[in-house]
């Protein structure tokens, strides 16, 4: 086989994607890097960009507001991904065997994934609203609890966690289910014949085989929860105070409300770098497990 000839075809097939991503992705990316080295507030006394080198990044490292949003986002991401992973796994297990109305249950269960984030946020906001929202109303009526996401940080967090779990666990469940179904039966049979108990089965056989799928799911969820904005914004507006203000919203406010393009750009790049590092670690764990063969 003529290697260089066939490599050319490979590159040709790959190129349209690279082209689009390159143009749509790289150009803005370089622009943001460029702006990130300037101080640029449209309404400062001195119009226009002022070159400040890496001063923005130095400021960011000490910016307690920004660091606060970063730590909150990481905490949220961690909580959400962990809970969704556990719940998703349990539910995926229960979907492995056929049972009556399984298709119905599964179809309904997947619905949240297709609702627009902005609609998800609006709906949950309505459900949690004081006075006309059913959740605070019935919690008060039946349990005497005072559920106010505008007043209590803990309750606001519970609300956004619930919302995210509602929205994304189906996705996690499906990917885990796919992974579970793809596990070859022979090793499991063999181990069972050898007298392995449930715990050993999971620890040494099932979970390790499931690892790639788990990692892919975690990868995607971490990535998305680190940049999400619309649904949390609609539900709590980042409040009470700034307790549910995450990085995505903070950058949005810096750029649009404060008109600080320079600082906002550098912030964005720092967060991107962060995300890349986290995902690169996950990615390496993932590709380490796959064999690499080609034709």
């Amino acid at each position: 086989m003529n290697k260089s000839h066939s490599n050319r075809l490979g590159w040709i097939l790959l190129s349209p994607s690279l082209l689009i991503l390159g143009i749509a992705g790289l150009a803005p990316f370089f622009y943001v890097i460029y702006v990130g080295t300037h101080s640029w507030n449209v309404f400062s006394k001195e119009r226009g960009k002022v070159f400040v080198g890496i001063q923005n990044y130095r400021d960011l490292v000490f910016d307690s507001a920004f660091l606060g949003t970063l730590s909150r986002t990481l905490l949220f991401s961690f909580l959400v991904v962990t809970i969704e992973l556990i719940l998703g796994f349990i539910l995926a297990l229960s979907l492995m065997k056929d049972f009556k109305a399984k298709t119905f249950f599964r179809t309904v269960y997947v619905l949240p994934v297709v609702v627009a984030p902005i609609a998800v946020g609006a709906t949950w906001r309505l459900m949690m609203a004081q006075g006309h929202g059913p959740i605070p109303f019935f919690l008060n009526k039946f349990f005497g609890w005072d559920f106010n996401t505008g007043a209590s940080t803990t309750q606001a967090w519970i609300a956004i966690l619930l919302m995210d779990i509602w929205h994304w666990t189906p996705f996690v469940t499906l990917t885990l289910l796919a992974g579970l179904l793809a596990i070859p039966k022979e090793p499991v049979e063999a181990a069972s014949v050898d007298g392995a108990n449930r715990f050993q089965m999971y620890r040494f056989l099932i979970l390790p085989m499931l690892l790639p799928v788990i990692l892919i799911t975690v990868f995607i969820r971490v990535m998305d929860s680190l940049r999400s904005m619309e649904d949390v914004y609609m539900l709590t507006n980042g409040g009470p105070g700034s307790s549910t203000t995450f990085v995505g919203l903070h950058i949005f406010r810096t750029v649009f409300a404060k008109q600080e393009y320079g600082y906002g750009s550098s912030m964005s790049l720092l967060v991107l770098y962060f995300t890349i590092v986290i995902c690169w670690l996950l990615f390496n764990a993932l590709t380490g497990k796959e064999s690499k063969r080609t034709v």
Partner: protein
Amino acid sequence: MNTNSAQSRFTSIFSGVSRYALWSLLTIFTLGPIYWMFVVSSRSPVEVYDKPNLVIDSFYTENYAKVFQDRVVRNYMVNSLIVATTNAILVTVLALFATYALTRWKLKGSDSIFFWTITNRMAPPAAFILPNFLIFTQVVKFDDFMLFDSKIGLILIYCLFNLPFAIWLLKGMLEGIPLELDEAALVDRASRMQVLFKIIVPLAAPGLAITFILTWVFAWNEYLLAASLSSSSARTITTRLAEYVTTTGTNYGELAAVAIIATLPAIIFLTFIQKYIVTGLTFGAVKE
């Protein structure tokens, strides 16, 4: 699906009544918010802000009537349809080519390239609005046409987050198709492209379907880019949702009505395709 044997004994953990209880509860939890959205859409503004009532006593049809009579909503729906469908097709095809190349050729730096494509989806979008705005209004400009406020513009920019996602999804699936099949066909003097279309595509069909559906849904639901890069002719239905949040009160009834109408196409898609979901995700190994 063969579910007896050791595997099912070890992996199924609920059975009988407890399983039905679990899934019934889940169904209530899942449908709850959607049901509430529907209830809100049946209420007039004064009723929405009243004490919550779980039952629909009377249906305030004004919300839906206004939405249906609204020429604008119809335009926005059509825009969304065009943009989402075209983008999903474009992305699926391009991703197919790309992943075929990545899995069947040993291209230099393909791992890094693969990782780089995903990074396009990682950045918080706010700071990228301005450069995209500039590109759309200044850089790509011929005579009267510019990318700003054009459906083509949206279709192209959506590739930024959909293409990486599709590539990631399909790569795993194509890797699950044994190379032996390729080799056998190539020995028989088939060309690479023939292998792609005659062997890979049929086997990957469920995966392609699932990729198409998910990218379609993401494109349909996207808000920030659509709002910032469109003005009047390329507005999508999700931007309409945001417009309901006004300074003189959010008309939640109408917002809910539009939200439900905006979600319907996706729900319809879902019900038709749902049998492919699991098949697609198991890389074709399991048929439903």
